[in-house]
């Protein structure tokens, strides 16, 4: 063994490497454990609640429910889509934005990329109605 001038003792070097390794694994636990996405079940609940309330809404004219009045035809949708948008806006809490797709067209806001979105789909007599909800 030659003179170990200027060198750390080998066991210290090994311990240093070991500490680095253990710390790396620990960092993985401290930061990397995927926390369940807390806002998704809540957003899904908001979306499905809105869909249920909309589907069972009391009518304003002669239809069976409010939604069948709005989704009667292309003309009725053009006439009433502003009212549908106001209705959804009022059902949802103020901190949420939404988008509703009906067989005749879409109302609401543009969905931004990269946000957590809750979604619900209901079947109506005129086709599928899909609601997306996200935090503003």
């Amino acid at each position, binding site marked *: 063994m030659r003179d170990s001038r200027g060198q750390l*003792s080998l*066991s*210290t070097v*090994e*311990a240093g490497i*070991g*500490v680095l390794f*253990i*710390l790396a*694994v*620990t960092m993985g*636990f*401290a930061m990397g*454990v995927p*926390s*369940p996405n*807390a806002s998704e*079940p*809540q957003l899904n*609940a*908001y979306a499905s*609640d*809105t869909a*249920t*309330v909309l589907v*069972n809404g*009391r009518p304003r004219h*002669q239809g*069976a*429910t409010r939604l069948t009045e709005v989704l009667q035809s292309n003309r009725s949708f053009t006439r009433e889509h502003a009212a549908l948008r106001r209705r959804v806006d*009022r*059902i*949802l*809490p103020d901190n949420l934005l939404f988008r509703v797709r009906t067989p005749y067209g879409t109302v609401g806001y543009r969905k931004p990329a990269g946000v957590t979105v809750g979604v619900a789909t209901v079947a109506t007599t005129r086709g599928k109605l899909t609601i997306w909800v996200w935090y503003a």
Partner: protein
Amino acid sequence: MRGQANLLSLAVALLVLTTVAGIGLHVADGAFASTDWTAAERRAAVSLSERLVSAGSPFTARANVLNRSRVSSLDPSGVRSQFPVVRDRSVRIRLGDRQVVSYGTPTGGTTIRRVVLLERRQRVQVTPPLAPPNYTTTLPRRTSRIRLTVDPPAGTSVTTVRANDRVVLRNTSGLDGTFDVRVSPMETVALSFDASGPLGRGDVTLTYYPELTTKTTLAVTVDA
């Protein structure tokens, strides 16, 4: 001399390594424990809220429509027996800004909010003006039942009452008194009367029960 220095550094190295390994295990254990708790909490909160607002819940008239009088009868023991998913966790249920149920001492915990309608039945009485030939009157709002009080003038008998052209009451020798009629809440009701003589305002009194709904949020908090 050199051998002793090596021994010392080996001891220090082992000590440092063991300490770091211990801290690492502790952190990992904590991470696992915390993840596990909130998942169970969230599952309980989501399913409790789901069951409270579902159509089959004892507190709803239909899905997402809570009956006001039934909700005010909610109590902690009722929640535990009807919704066993909460087990012995602390639960708080708020409706709007009113606390309905508080069980245990929930601090923090997981909260799920649901959009619900709160329903109550109004009682509305009308004495419709009746005009021949059909003596038709339309109820302005939908209802699931109507209470009719028929009190025809002397010499006139009311034989048939129709709701949207369906016969709901019939007596060939004349209807007189108070009758309960069930109608569909999904359509506007127009009542018409067959009478042997003239009918006027006050000969028929109608009581109906339209629903009044207000929007609110149901917040369910579950703390393990």
